[in-house]
């Protein structure tokens, strides 16, 4: 695929009021649509989002999200070393952090073996359900 050509087509559509473009020449077929992802164009949208502004590696990373609202702690007690550091490999079931909710310390475990690539939340920071805690790479 000629990605430069596609990029040019997208740029053209961006700056114009064109909302749909279809092209067929022999075996080549290109279709582009703009705006209102609610309908069928949703299809390609998340993929495009991933591709723009993210490195190849980031695209492979998995987000580990908070399963509850609470306060994020990296270590079992103040002063103790963190459960995990960036770059560390963990097994399924290893504790990654604690989320304190209503005075209860909930240990958050890895659901699959992985390397923790990035810690996304500061120690003692408040998190919601769905807040991304770690970026990890499956191993």
């Amino acid at each position: 695929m000629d990605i430069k050509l596609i990029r040019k087509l997208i740029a053209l559509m961006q700056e114009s009021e064109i909302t749909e473009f279809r092209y067929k020449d022999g075996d080549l077929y290109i279709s582009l649509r703009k705006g209102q992802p609610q309908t069928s164009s949703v299809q390609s949208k998340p993929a495009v989002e991933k591709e723009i502004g993210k490195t190849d590696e980031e695209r492979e990373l998995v987000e580990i999200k908070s399963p509850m609202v609470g306060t994020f702690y990296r270590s079992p007690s103040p002063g103790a070393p963190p459960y995990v550091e960036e770059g560390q490999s963990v097994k399924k079931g290893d504790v990654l952090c604690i989320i304190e909710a209503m005075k209860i310390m909930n240990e958050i475990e890895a659901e699959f073996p992985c390397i923790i690539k990035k810690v996304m939340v500061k120690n003692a920071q408040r998190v919601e359900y769905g807040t991304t805690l770690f970026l990890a790479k499956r191993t």
Partner: protein
Amino acid sequence: MFKKVLVANRGEIALRVIRACKELDIKTVIAYSYEDRESIPVKISDEKVCIGPSSSDKSYLNMAAIAEAVLQTNADAVHPGYGFLSENPSFAGVCRDLNVTFIGPSIPLMKYLSNKLEVKKRLKRANIPTILGSDGVVQSAGEAKEIARKIGYPVLFKAVWGGGGRGLRIVREEKDIENAFSAAREEARVSFGKADVYMERFIEHPKHVEVQILADKFGNVIHLFERDCTLQRRHQKLLEESPSPFLSEKKRKEILDAAVKIARILNYENVGTVEFLLDEQGNFYFIEINTRIQVEHPVTEMCTGIDIMKEQIKLAAGEKLNINQKDVNVKFHSMECRINAEDERFIPSPGRIEKLFIPGGPGVRVDTAIYGGCSVTPYYDSLIAKLIVRGNTRDETIGRMERALDEFIVEGIKTNIPFFKKIVSSDRFKNKDYDTNYIDRNF
């Protein structure tokens, strides 16, 4: 007054709470499920905390998560809306432990009122008309038969704890008592955690009338007139109006006086709704008192011009009631249709709303959180909008409701708008010829 209210609900009622808070200059936090992250209440609330995934028991019924959200945001009060945790004394207890105000009546009052049988006995002693029935919990099918012989068939089994039509069984002949007794107990147990049921004589063609009450912590009680909720389907209200088309002026005064008397006897506080049944002869009987803001409160707001939600918040903050009974008057006739995302067979119809046009113009109010392009999820109640209209007379109000239903365009999902068009334009509705069973028997 509160500085920050956490809204522990979703959809139109969450929006309603936020609207009232904004008008009272109170900040809001919405505790929402991941499913609702793009909803209008989440968008317009000052703060927001995602408390869990789509399913209600992990989000809107998740007391620990809501409590944590309260702590995180330093809210000083919680508004539970209706449904979900709104009538749950345990949740009110959690709020008390967090040292924040649960916007509703006191915990002892909530607990006391949830025992419907005890409340009934107390009011009966005070000469409030109640429906003939068992004096207490019915312990066995044998006892049930005895009582039924005394009060006469048909009879009704009702759950002592809880309401909303669950745990109800009608029995017309003695041979059906045993099955009905155990079925009612089982349903009550599953729904409310306690199997206790009691019995009442069943009224065949009742009307349903309720009185809106406002009461402060200083013993001041007023009513905001009645709402008629006779149009129901399987004990679920569908259309409410005020004034009731079934009450004479004399009967209206009696029922309003009774409601205020009941609130006083029970030392009621905050907003509440006293529910009555009318029998075929026009006699009224106390059924129960609801301690939450009702779905249908806008009907009364349209009639009287009083903002019940704002009053509720002020009362919960300990303010003295600043409305006198003599200043409350019925300025308009008003009516509400509960617009549900459901098909012609009343089955929920979730999906994406493609095109939407919401009625407007004179005398029309719509309480809704939907918008063109939004999704109606299968996770929650199918109520998507409340269409409320007012007019100077019942006729003008009905005419306005017909035209508002006509211009209500919802494409992409099915709704009960066509059903309401049929009802509202029918002669039986216009001529007040219906009772609470009308829909079940005719649709």
